[in-house]
């Protein structure tokens, strides 16, 4: 669309707009990129006051942990192809191989396989090849950029962060599946019923959405700790202590997430024409059949988007998991406080940074793959009012 000359923006406005945008992009990405850079250096470099020391890592380099020009080029090439594979062949493979209706699940499996494969090539295979090349090429092969992955090894292998990772995965997967199953049914009914009852449920959900989570946890905590005693008359000897159980945390997070889920899914279902299920009803379907055979095939975009936000809630939660799980059995986010509260040495701090980057990396992948869905999710509730 060409703009008439009279309406063209003056240069100053264009410059201001572009300048502001550049500034914002730097501001948005910088803290995250910076901690990623920190985590690969020796502590003295990581917390150096001179930014160039942090980037180039002279101390790390002096200890013989560094990358040569060859390493950097090879690393960048692998990264580039990894991204190409992720948006090209991986996407096609996932879409072809997964049966219809399980696309989100297919993506989870696909992303996990991709991440593991990437790690094996990048951390296991690439160093072997480049060390061989470095030996051959002499001056080109001398390290020029300080870098070490020892903090990641310390976090994941020595400190057992993988156990926290597994806990996070269990909680997150549970929250997402249960939230969606329960929420989809409710969201559909609320979108189709215009009754006062439906509206009261929605308003109640809105109020529940506003409740600080600590208020709710204050209600659970005494009950969960004493649940073995409380449930004993019903279940006898087998009454479980709910405190410290991932299952209990999943139930709590699903409930906390429910108000948001039903509002969001309701707005997606409102965009599916009601004529569809009316036609199915005319053909003799019950409401459940109409839902199963007419609505379910077309609801996946909305469900995937809502699922992303449920995933984020479970993955990012600190408050509920830190209070309801005991310290030995934490998910990733509360576990990290153990590092920065300890802070006895700067090495601990850099390990905390490495743990933080490890937690952020999956989210980074998530935005990369699902950018469109996240944007549509953010606007779904809003545009309808």
């Amino acid at each position, binding site marked *: 669309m060409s703009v008439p000359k009279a309406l063209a923006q003056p240069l100053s406005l264009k410059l201001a707009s572009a300048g502001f945008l550049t500034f914002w*992009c730097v501001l*948005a990405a910088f803290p995250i990129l910076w901690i990623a850079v920190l985590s690969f250096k020796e502590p003295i470099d990581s*917390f150096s006051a001179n930014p160039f020391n942090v980037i180039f890592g002279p101390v790390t380099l002096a200890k013989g942990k560094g990358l040569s020009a060859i390493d950097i080029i090879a690393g960048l090439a692998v990264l580039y192809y990894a991204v190409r594979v992720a948006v090209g062949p991986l996407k096609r493979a996932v879409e072809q191989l997964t049966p219809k209706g399980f696309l989100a699940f297919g993506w989870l499996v696909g992303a996990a396989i991709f991440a593991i494969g990437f790690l094996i090539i990048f951390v296991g295979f690439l160093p072997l090849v480049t060390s061989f090349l470095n030996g051959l090429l002499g001056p080109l092969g001398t390290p020029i950029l300080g870098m070490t992955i020892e903090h990641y090894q310390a976090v994941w292998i020595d400190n057992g962060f993988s156990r926290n990772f597994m806990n996070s995965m269990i909680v997150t997967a549970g929250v997402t599946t249960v939230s969606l199953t329960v*929420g989809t*049914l409710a969201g559909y009914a609320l979108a189709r019923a215009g009754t006062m009852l439906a509206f009261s449920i929605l308003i109640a959900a809105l109020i529940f959405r506003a409740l600080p989570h*600590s208020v709710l946890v204050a209600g659970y905590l005494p009950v969960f700790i004493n649940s073995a005693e409380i449930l004993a008359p019903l279940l006898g000897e087998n009454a479980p202590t709910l405190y410290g159980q991932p299952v209990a945390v999943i139930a709590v997070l699903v409930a906390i997430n429910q108000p948001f889920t039903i509002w969001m899914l309701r707005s997606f279902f409102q965009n599916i024409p009601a004529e569809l299920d009316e036609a199915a009803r005319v053909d003799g379907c019950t409401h459940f059949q109409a839902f199963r055979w007419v609505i379910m095939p077309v609801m996946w975009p909305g469900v995937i988007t809502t699922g992303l936000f449920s995933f984020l809630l479970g*993955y990012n939660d*600190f408050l509920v998991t830190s209070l309801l799980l005991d310290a030995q059995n934490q998910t990733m*986010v509360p576990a990290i406080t153990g590092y920065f509260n300890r802070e006895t040495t700067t090495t601990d701090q850099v390990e905390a940074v490495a743990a933080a980057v490890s937690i952020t990396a999956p989210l980074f992948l998530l935005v990369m793959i699902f950018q469109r869905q996240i944007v549509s999710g953010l606007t779904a509730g809003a545009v309808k009012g």
Partner: protein
Amino acid sequence: MNKKTFAAFVGPSVVMMILFIAIPLIFVLIQSFQVTQPVTELVEVEKCTPGFTGQICETKIETRQMFDDAGNPLRQTKFVGFDSYNKVLELQRAGAALAEGSIKAFLQIDFWKALRFTLTFTLITLPLVLGVGLLIALAVNNATQRIKGPIIFISLLPFIITPVIGALAIRWLFIGDGILTAAIEWYLARDVALFAQGWTIELMMLFYRVWHVAPFAFVVFYAGLQTVNQDTIESAIIDGASRFERLRYVIIPHMMPLVVFVALIHLMDAYRAFEEIVGFSSQAHIISLQWLTYDFLQADDSGNRSISRASASAMLTMIGIVLLLFPLLRKTWQDYRGGKI
């Protein structure tokens, strides 16, 4: 859809919300009026120590915890009325401080300190988030098509990041001689310690929150900008409206529902401020209402949790959010009656 089918569809969700939100709320209300303590008894104990001339004995009255037959500590729950609320609010101390006219002493009290921070935090970040979000949306709308995708990707990063980690990322830029502290020191040519006093930490928290939420406002506003009626813009141009007037009288009124939506969500979330306190480890200087409850709920050194006081502070927090949201809820109600949603 008849009532029975509706109930079948909505049932699981409503049951979950009742079981895990409504009932816990009732528990919290009850707990806030009760205190559960270990039962103790006073016993006379005679203690003897061997001395030079003979035994030295003294009798003392000690409190001792009582145990039931199975060896578990006995506990009793008793009704204490508004006692726990009073312990949280510390009304006498607050009153005394106010009578002296000492705001500083008043804000030393945990609850009022938390309330002060939570409210200023919510109210200061609100216009900043809306303003920054709108600016980014306008700037992105102005950019060429090709770079819009990457810019939205970068913008989503602060929003998607785990809040505690986001706060930590900002903290690591400043802590000790972190590069931004070093930059400030170089600029001011003097030493600064950003984690030594409350107000600098508070500034960093405000910055973090705006950084974290502005992308959300941006995405919503950007979507809104796509639906601005071009004919209205055109007629405004013909009527001689300047760029600013077009923004002020055409675009912003069009986006008003979105502004209300973002404001509503942001009020709810900022009032729950909590992760900042953890990420910046600021509990010595600054606490929020939700952190106060969290702190009561955590087990102290002897493994006790002040459930009663936590419940009282939770109830007070809840009253606050209801008051804050009441005008917006009333508007939603009116809109629904008018058939707008």
